[in-house]
C-alpha cells in the first residue's frame, strides 16, 4: 500500500494542501503534486483497467511515458478522457475518474476478457471478423466500437479558450535538464536567440533525484545558478510546461504549452500551440527507463525503478513499505538507496547479471541489503496489488527458488534515449551494444535544404546516461558513482515457459505480451512496422515509449537476427498527445473561417435572409418573409423582378482592372473572343478557358479607356482568375506591358433588374439612363442620388437591367437609397436562387453547373463567343484535338418534362444496353434544373449526345425508387428568345 511520507518531497509545498476527488471519493494532496503522486499518497494504487483484457492497472512511470494510469478529468463540458496522471498537476477541486470498466473500478465485467485472453491473441480481429462479409458492418463493428476505447469524450462544446503563437529563434532547446540548460547557456553566450522549453513545471530533469555533483555543486544548486545566469540574457526565453511536440522540415517545431491546466478558471487560455522556426533544435529530451518482461509485470505496484525513487524524492510518496528491486543494471540500485533513505525496506535486489560487484551494489550490500545475482522474477502474485514476488534463476525456465513478500516491485531493464525529435525529421539512430539502446547518429542528423543540421541530441538523449558523461559532453565536470555495464535482458527468465510469456506484458496500453510478438513472428511478420500493426504494439497514446525496444528485441530474437537489422518503427509527432483545442486555436465559432461580408451584409442579415456559401461569401439565397417557404420566396422574387423590379447585391462579382499598351493583346489571349476591338464605352460577354481548352470562367468585359479594361469574373473565380492572369504575365509574357489590379472589393455593385428598373434610376436622378444615352451593353459614369457611380447596361436575367458600381464604403447607403426609391415601383431584393432560375429561363450557362472542368465552350453552343479570326487564345490548340472536335461530345440542350415536374439535379438520361461493368448505358445528364415560376413548370438544361440534332426527342431519366421521368429535348432558351425585353 502506498502512502505519504512524513518528511521530504522536494516539489511539494505542505503548507498548501489541496482537495480533489477520485471516482467521487474525496482525497487530499499538496501543491506541487502530480495527480499520480497524490493518488499514491492517498493509497490509491489501482488506477484503471487495461484496454483489451480489463486487467487492474496502477501507475508504472512518473512522467510522459506513462501507459497505464489514464483517467477522465473534469466533468460535463470540461470532461477530458485519457489524461496521464503522471503529467497532470494537482489543483484544488480536481475531479478525476478511472476509465474502461463497468460497473466499477474494483469490479469490472469486462475483466472476463482476461479469463478468455488465450482466445484474444495478436491479430484476433483480423482472423475472427472476416466472415461473413456482411457481418462486419452490422454485427462486429458496432460491438467492437462499443467495447473499445478508454475514456469518453465530452458531448458539449469546450468552454475553454485556446490559442497559437509563432516564435523564431536560432536555437530551440527541447528539455530543461542538465544537458539542455548547459547547451542553452553555451548558445546564449555565443549571442544566439535561444528558446528553452521544458515539458514539466520544474527544471532540472532527473539530476536532483539521481544525485552526484556538477562543477562541485549539488545538481539543484547548479540548476538554480544556471537558471539565474540564463535569465540574465535578453536573447534567452525560458518556458516551462511546454513540450516540443514535433520537429518538421525547415526547422519548424510544434510546441505545446499547457498554460492553465493547473489553474482552471483564471481567465488564461488553457493551451497555447507554439509554431516555432528554429535554426537548430537541440534535443535534450533525456531517456526513458525500460520495463522488464516477466510474468505479472503489470500488477499494480510493479513500477519502473526510476519512478519509485521519483515518487519518494520528489513528492515524499512511498509506493510501498517493502520493495523488491529487479534490474539488469547498476542505476536501479539508486532506487534502493532512496527507499532506504526514506526509512522503507528493500526486501532484496534481484539482479539478472551473474555478478553485481560495482560501487553501487557494494554500497547496498554494506547497508545490509540482499543482492541476488543471476536471478530473475518468475512471477508476481497479487491481483489488484502486489503481494509476493517469485524468484528464479535468470538463465532457467522459471522454476521458483524463493518467494518474497512485498508490496512494490521496482524494475529496470536499462534506458532508452528519447530520440523522437531527432528522428521526426529524418535523423537516423544507431544501435549501441554497450547500452543496449538506439542512440542518435550524429553523422546522419536531420538536415535542412541547404544541408545544415536541423537537430542534434545532447545528454541522455544522445546516449550519455550518466551525469559525468552528460557533463563532459557539455564541457563541465561532474562526479557520480560509477556504473558497471548492464546485461541486456529482453525476457525474464531467459528460458521462460509459454505460460510465463503469456503473462509478460510488453505494451501495457494495448495489452501486448511477449507471446503476441512471438506469435506474429511465427505467422510470418518480419517487418517491425507490420508487426506493430498486427499486434498493436507501440500504438495509441503512449506510442510505445516503454514497449518498443523490448518488443523489437523479442521480434529480432524470434527472427534470429540482430536488433539493428530489425530496426525501429517510425517516430512520429506529437511526442505526447496534444489537445484538439490547441490545434484549433482561434478558429472556432465566428472565427472558424474568414467569412467575407459585402457592404450590404448588415442589411441582408436584418432582413432575415437565407444565405448560401459562395467561396467565403455568404450570399443571400432568398429573403423569405414570415411564414414563407424558401421556395415561395424565390418564386415571388422572380415574378416580382420580371413584372416590377428586383435588386441584387452583386458586389461579390470579381472586378479586375487590366491596363497597359499590351492589355488588348493580353485579353485576346485570355478570352476566347476578341476584346481588343471592343470600343471604349461598351461591354462584351466573354469566356475564359484554361490551356487544356476547358471552360474556366465567364463574365462581362468593359472597355474603360483606350488602354484599360475591367474584367468581371464569377464570384468564386475572382482571386483565381486574377492569379491566372498574373501567372501568365509574370511567367510567360513577362515582357508585355500590362498591369492588373484586383478591384473586386473596391466597389459595391447593385443590379437593378426588371421592366421598371429605369424608373427607379430616374427617380434617383443625376444621370441620363435612357435607352438612347445608355443602350444595352454600354456603360457610363455619373452620379445617382449624389453617389458617384458607374452604370453597366448588362443583363443576366433577360430583363432591362443596370448594374451599378459605387465605392464600397458607400455601398450600404446606396443600397438603402435604391431600395427606398424602388418602393413605389414594387422593388424587392432577390437572391442567388432567383438569379440562377432567371438565368436558366434564358438558357444562359452557369460556371460550375454547366461546366465541371471537362466542358469546352463548343459543348455549350457558345461558338458565337469564340473568335475565328484570332491566331491564338488560351485553349485554342487544345480545342482542335480530335476528341474535342468529335461530333459525339455531349452538347447543351434544354429539357422539358412531359408532366411539367422538375427533374432531379444531376440525373442521367439512359440509353439502351449495359456497359462492360454491367451498368446501364447513358446518353446525357442534367446540369441545372429548376421550377420556373415564369413558365409555371420545370425547366432544365443538360448535356446530351448529339443533343442539338435531336430536338423533340424524349429521353428517360430514372429517378429515385424506380420512377422514370420523361423529358423532351428543347431549345435551352425558355424565355424571350429574341432578347427584346433586355434591350429596351
Amino acid at each position: 500500500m502506498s502512502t505519504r511520507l512524513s518528511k521530504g518531497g522536494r516539489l511539494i509545498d505542505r503548507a498548501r494542501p489541496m482537495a480533489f476527488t477520485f471516482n467521487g471519493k474525496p482525497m487530499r494532496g499538496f501543491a506541487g503534486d502530480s495527480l499520480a503522486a497524490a493518488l499514491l499518497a492517498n493509497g490509491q494504487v489501482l488506477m484503471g483497467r487495461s484496454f483489451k483484457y480489463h486487467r487492474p492497472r496502477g501507475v508504472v512511470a512518473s512522467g510522459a511515458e506513462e501507459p497505464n494510469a489514464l483517467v477522465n478529468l473534469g466533468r460535463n463540458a470540461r470532461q477530458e478522457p485519457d489524461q496521464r496522471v503522471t503529467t497532470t498537476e494537482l489543483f484544488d477541486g480536481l475531479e478525476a475518474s478511472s476509465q474502461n470498466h463497468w460497473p466499477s473500478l474494483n469490479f469490472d465485467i469486462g475483466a472476463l476478457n482476461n479469463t478468455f485472453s488465450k482466445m484474444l491473441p495478436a491479430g484476433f480481429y483480423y482472423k475472427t471478423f472476416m466472415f461473413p462479409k456482411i457481418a462486419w458492418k452490422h454485427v462486429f463493428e458496432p460491438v467492437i466500437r462499443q467495447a473499445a476505447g478508454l475514456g469518453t469524450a465530452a458531448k458539449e462544446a469546450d468552454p475553454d479558450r485556446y490559442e497559437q503563437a509563432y516564435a523564431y529563434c536560432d536555437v530551440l532547446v527541447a528539455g530543461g535538464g542538465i544537458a539542455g540548460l548547459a547547451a542553452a547557456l553555451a548558445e546564449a553566450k555565443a549571442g544566439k536567440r535561444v528558446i528553452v522549453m521544458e515539458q514539466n513545471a520544474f527544471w532540472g530533469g532527473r539530476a536532483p533525484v539521481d544525485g552526484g555533483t556538477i562543477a562541485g555543486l549539488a545538481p539543484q544548486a547548479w540548476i538554480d545558478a544556471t537558471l539565474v545566469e540564463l535569465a540574465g540574457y535578453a536573447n534567452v526565453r525560458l518556458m516551462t510546461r511546454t513540450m516540443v511536440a514535433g520537429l518538421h522540415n525547415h526547422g519548424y517545431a510544434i510546441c505545446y504549452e499547457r498554460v492553465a491546466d493547473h489553474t482552471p478558471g483564471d481567465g488564461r487560455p488553457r493551451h497555447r500551440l507554439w509554431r516555432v522556426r528554429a535554426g537548430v533544435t537541440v534535443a535534450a529530451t533525456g531517456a526513458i527507463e525500460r520495463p522488464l518482461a516477466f510474468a505479472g509485470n503489470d500488477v499494480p505496484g510493479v513500477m519502473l525503478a526510476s519512478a519509485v525513487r521519483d515518487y519518494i524524492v520528489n513528492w515524499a510518496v512511498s509506493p510501498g513499505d517493502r520493495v523488491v528491486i529487479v534490474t539488469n543494471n547498476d542505476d536501479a540500485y539508486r532506487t534502493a538507496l532512496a527507499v532506504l533513505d526514506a526509512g522503507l525496506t528493500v526486501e532484496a535486489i534481484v539482479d539478472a547479471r551473474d555478478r553485481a560487484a560495482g560501487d553501487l551494489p557494494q554500497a547496498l550490500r554494506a547497508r545490509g541489503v540482499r543482492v541476488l545475482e543471476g536471478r530473475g522474477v518468475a512471477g508476481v502474485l497479487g491481483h489488484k496489488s502486489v503481494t509476493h514476488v517469485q524468484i528464479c534463476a535468470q538463465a532457467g525456465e522459471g522454476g521458483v527458488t524463493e518467494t518474497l513478500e512485498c508490496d512494490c516491485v521496482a524494475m529496470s531493464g536499462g534506458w532508452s534515449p528519447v530520440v523522437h525529435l531527432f528522428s521526426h525529421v529524418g535523423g537516423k539512430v544507431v544501435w549501441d551494444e554497450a547500452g543496449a539502446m538506439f542512440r542518435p547518429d550524429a553523422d546522419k542528423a536531420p538536415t535542412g535544404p541547404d544541408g545544415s543540421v536541423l537537430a542534434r541530441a545532447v545528454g541522455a538523449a544522445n546516449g550519455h546516461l550518466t551525469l559525468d558523461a552528460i557533463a563532459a559532453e557539455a564541457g563541465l565536470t561532474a562526479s557520480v558513482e560509477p556504473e558497471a555495464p548492464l546485461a541486456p535482458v529482453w525476457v525474464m527468465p531467459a528460458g521462460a515457459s509459454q505460460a510465463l510469456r503469456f503473462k509478460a506484458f510488453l505494451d501495457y496500453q494495448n495489452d501486448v505480451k511477449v507471446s503476441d510478438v512471438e506469435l506474429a513472428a511465427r505467422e510470418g511478420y518480419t517487418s517491425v512496422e507490420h508487426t506493430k500493426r498486427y499486434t498493436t504494439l507501440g500504438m495509441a497514446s503512449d506510442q510505445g515509449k516503454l514497449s518498443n525496444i523490448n518488443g523489437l528485441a523479442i521480434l529480432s530474437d524470434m527472427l534470429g537476427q540482430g536488433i539493428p537489422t530489425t530496426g525501429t518503427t517510425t517516430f512520429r509527432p506529437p511526442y505526447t498527445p496534444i489537445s484538439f483545442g490547441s490545434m484549433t486555436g482561434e478558429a472556432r465559432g465566428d472565427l472558424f473561417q474568414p467569412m467575407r461580408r459585402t457592404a450590404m451584409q448588415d442589411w441582408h442579415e436584418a432582413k432575415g435572409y437565407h444565405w448560401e456559401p459562395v467561396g467565403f461569401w455568404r450570399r443571400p439565397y432568398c429573403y423569405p418573409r414570415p411564414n414563407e417557404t424558401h421556395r415561395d420566396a424565390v418564386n415571388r422574387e422572380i415574378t416580382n423582378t420580371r413584372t416590377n423590379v428586383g435588386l441584387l447585391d452583386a458586389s461579390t462579382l470579381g472586378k479586375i482592372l487590366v491596363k497597359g499598351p499590351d492589355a488588348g493583346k493580353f485579353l485576346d489571349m485570355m478570352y476566347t473572343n476578341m476584346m481588343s476591338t471592343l470600343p471604349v464605352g461598351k461591354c462584351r460577354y466573354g469566356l475564359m478557358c484554361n490551356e487544356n481548352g476547358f471552360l474556366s470562367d465567364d463574365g462581362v468585359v468593359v472597355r474603360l479607356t483606350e488602354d484599360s479594361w475591367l474584367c468581371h469574373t464569377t464570384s468564386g473565380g475572382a482571386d483565381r482568375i486574377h492569379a491566372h492572369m498574373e501567372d501568365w504575365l509574370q511567367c510567360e509574357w513577362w515582357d508585355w506591358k500590362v498591369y492588373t489590379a484586383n478591384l473586386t472589393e473596391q466597389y459595391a455593385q447593385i443590379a437593378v433588374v426588371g421592366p421598371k428598373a429605369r424608373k427607379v434610376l430616374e427617380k434617383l436622378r443625376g444621370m441620363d439612363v435612357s435607352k438612347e444615352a445608355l443602350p444595352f451593353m454600354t456603360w457610363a459614369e455619373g452620379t445617382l442620388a449624389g453617389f458617384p457611380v458607374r452604370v453597366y447596361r448588362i443583363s443576366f436575367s433577360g430583363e432591362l437591367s443596370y448594374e451599378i458600381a459605387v465605392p464600397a464604403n458607400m455601398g450600404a447607403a446606396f443600397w438603402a437609397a435604391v431600395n427606398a426609391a424602388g418602393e413605389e415601383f414594387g422593388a424587392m431584393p432577390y437572391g442567388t436562387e432567383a438569379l440562377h432560375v432567371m438565368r436558366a429561363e434564358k438558357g444562359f450557362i452557369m460556371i460550375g453547373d454547366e461546366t465541371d472542368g471537362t466542358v469546352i465552350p463548343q459543348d455549350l453552343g457558345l461558338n458565337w463567343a469564340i473568335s475565328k479570326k484570332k491566331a491564338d487564345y488560351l485553349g485554342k490548340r487544345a480545342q482542335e484535338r480530335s476528341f474535342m472536335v468529335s461530333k459525339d461530345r455531349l452538347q447543351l440542350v434544354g429539357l422539358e418534362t412531359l408532366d411539367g415536374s422538375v427533374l432531379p439535379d444531376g440525373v442521367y438520361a439512359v440509353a439502351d444496353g449495359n456497359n462492360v461493368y454491367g451498368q446501364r448505358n447513358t446518353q446525357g445528364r442534367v446540369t441545372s434544373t429548376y421550377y420556373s415560376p415564369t413558365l409555371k413548370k420545370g425547366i432544365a438544361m443538360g448535356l446530351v449526345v448529339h443533343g442539338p440534332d435531336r430536338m423533340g426527342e424524349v429521353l428517360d431519366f430514372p429517378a429515385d425508387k424506380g420512377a422514370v421521368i420523361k423529358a423532351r429535348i428543347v431549345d435551352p432558351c425558355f424565355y424571350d428568345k429574341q432578347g427584346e425585353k433586355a434591350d429596351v
Partner: protein
Amino acid sequence: MSDAVSALNGRSHTGFATVADAGMTGMVQIRADLGSARLATALSARGLTVPAARQVVAGQGFSLAWMSPDELLLFCAYDRAAILAGDLGAEMGDEHALIVNVSDMRSVFTITGAKGDEVLMKLCPLDLASLPAMEMRRTRAAQTGVALWRSGNEEITLICFRSVARYMLGLLEVASRRGGEIF
C-alpha cells in the same frame, strides 16, 4: 461624403492592448516601373521618395509603402485619394503605369499598447521581434492576408481586405483578451 463609412465604423476593443478600426483611409495603388524618373518626380512633388524594398516612407500627410518590385501603396486622406490617383496618372503621361484609387477595398487597423506585439504573435507567422519601425510585412493573420508595419511608438498598423474586416477585428479581439498575455 457623409454616406461613406468604413466596414466597422470605428469599432475598437481594449484588452491587454487596444485594437481599433482606424476608419476610412485614402489609398492609391501604383503599379509602375519603380525606377521611373517620372514617378520619382511625381512623388517628390509630394515630399515622397520611392521606398526601398519593404519600407514605408512618410511625408506631408502621405505615407508610401513598397508592396512588390513594381507596386507601391500610397496612403492619404480618404477624400483626396480619387483626385490624387487622377493627378498621378496624368503626371505619368504616356508612361506605362496603373494608378487607381483603392481606398474602399481595404480596412485599416491599429494595434496599440506595450504588448501590441503579443496580439500579432498569435496571428501572424512573422518574426516581430526583429521587425524594425516602418518596415512593411505582407503576411497573413490566421486565415486571411494582411500587411502590417510599426507605424509609431507602440503602434502597429495593419491592413486587410474590407470584406474580412469583421473577421479581422474578431481575431484581434480574441488575441488581445486579458489573461492571454504571453510574457
